[in-house]
């Protein structure tokens, strides 16, 4: 009996130690290099004040390419980041100990096969508010808030970017290369300034269907990710 207990203890310690070596991936929302807190007022370089009320996006198919050439692929790799809920923006990859990482790739959004697979669960459950009803498909990236520049109702801007069918495919693959030695805790910055400085909110403020504008904004959105080293 004591032998069984000892073995169980041994295995749980092993598991604990292995979990300690897992890669953690943290996404940090920044504006002008400073962390964004909920409903804080921001001023963009073009001078207009704006607030961010919702930022949710799907990160999927995470892969880590090691310096040795090996690739770690996360299984069932679908994550909904919701910056109102900090537990969703820190991802624990079940990687075990890995060597030094050369680069990381992931998708911003959901691939087309998953988009046509019916009702899915977990982060892909349609009740997460990231699924369109009248034109099926996932919203890859949702950014909402207000800006004095938007002459809309309550000065709102609303970007719901998605679409999996050509020619309005909004899925973007992101590749981030490590310049320095990679750490166990990988921090990825999402710099809002890089998004808002490239659009004119007085003209572009409401994009909520798969369309040309959604494709253009998806091209911008995938470039606001970078490794914080």
């Amino acid at each position, binding site marked *: 009996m004591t032998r069984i207990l000892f073995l169980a203890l041994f295995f749980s310690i092993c598991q604990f130690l292995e979990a300690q070596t897992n890669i953690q991936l943290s996404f940090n929302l920044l504006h002008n290099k400073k962390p964004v807190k909920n409903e804080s007022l921001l001023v963009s370089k073009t001078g207009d004040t704006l607030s961010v009320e919702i930022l949710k996006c799907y990160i999927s198919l995470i892969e880590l390419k090691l310096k040795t050439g090996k690739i770690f692929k996360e299984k069932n790799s679908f994550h909904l980041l919701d910056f109102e809920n900090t537990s969703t923006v820190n991802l624990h990859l079940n990687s075990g100990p890995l060597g030094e990482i050369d680069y990381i790739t992931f998708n911003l959004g959901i691939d087309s096969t998953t*988009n*046509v*697979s*019916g*009702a*899915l*669960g977990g982060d892909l*459950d*349609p*009740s*997460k*508010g990231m*699924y369109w*009803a*009248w*034109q*099926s*498909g996932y919203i890859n990236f949702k950014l909402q808030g207000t800006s004095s520049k938007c002459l809309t109702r309550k000065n709102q801007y609303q970007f719901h970017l998605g679409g999996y*069918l050509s020619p*309005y495919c909004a899925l973007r693959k992101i590749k981030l290369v490590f310049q320095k030695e990679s750490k166990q805790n990988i921090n990825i910055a999402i710099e809002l300034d890089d998004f808002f400085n490239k659009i004119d909110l007085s003209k572009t403020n409401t994009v909520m269907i798969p*369309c040309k504008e959604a494709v253009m904004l998806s091209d911008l959105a995938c470039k606001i990710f970078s490794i914080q080293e």
Partner: protein
Amino acid sequence: MKKKIIILFFYLGIIALSFVSLKPKSINFIIPKGWPKVVYDFSKNTLTEDGVELGRHLFYDPILSRDSTISCASCHLQAVGFTHVDHDLSHGIEDKIGTRNSLALMNLAWSKNFMWDGGVNHLDVQPLAPITSKVEMDESIENIVRKLNSGSKYKSLFKRAFSDSNVTGQKTLLAISQFVLQLNSYNSKYDKYIRKEAGGEFTEQEKNGLRLFRKSCSSCHTEPLFTNNDFMNNGLPLDTILKDFGRYNTTKNSKDSLKFKVPTLRNIEFSYPYMHDGRFKKLFQVLNHYSSDLTKSKTLAKELQVPIALTSNEKVDIVAFLLTLTDKSFLSNPKLSYPKTFFSKATKE
């Protein structure tokens, strides 16, 4: 010691038995002889008696709408082929009126996409469209999950269907799919005629109607589903108030302008009014449209470039044939009807 071992095995036996009895009874999906392959992937949503029963309750429960007035069945009535008889446009919450005629629900496992414009890409996610429509149910799946989780009635049904009482959006949608996948119609007089069964004896008029139908209509309304599951512009003039361009609204491709889903003609005797905006009340109006009133446009179906030549006697024969597509056993199947016992218990509590 021996005694202890016997007792241990006895308990293990009971545990094993309880697992056997807990496992929901699965249902076989029947594909009628000679029918095409199904589109729906049953391996991802195994049909079970408890799953179908849960779906049936959800289908008939107005809890799916914001103010608990509208259920799926409000616009999809069994007796008329699971559509809304006498309503040209869908009639939803607070007497609001939509922009399209509710489609008849049947043989859905063979459908690749849904709605008049094909905007919905999978049967499982179809309920989200009426649920979130401001003029139909005006509710969100998030809130439905909250409502279903807050009472004990549904939690026990979910427990039986999915071995877990926690309600999620996924399970809610999968259960509704399981029920609507039971809405299958293949026992009409026409089907019995094809299978050479008793009750399938066609009159000369019906035979002539079928012959004319195969000559003039079946390239789009293809047997045995009586639809080719495609989108076509059938020459209806644009309704200048609704301004509905059909499939174009979804694809934004000008080639899809004014194209709508080709609906099945099964049970058409009861599913009036006809067309995406319910503009025709009678089958004769539909036939008159195809034989004379086609509006020319760039996307008009190639099959309709010339109106279909039909004499008035031929039209009578085609209608006689169309009436053989009525499937009484489907329209009155008690397994598909309102689950009275569940809701009467619910009101008493």
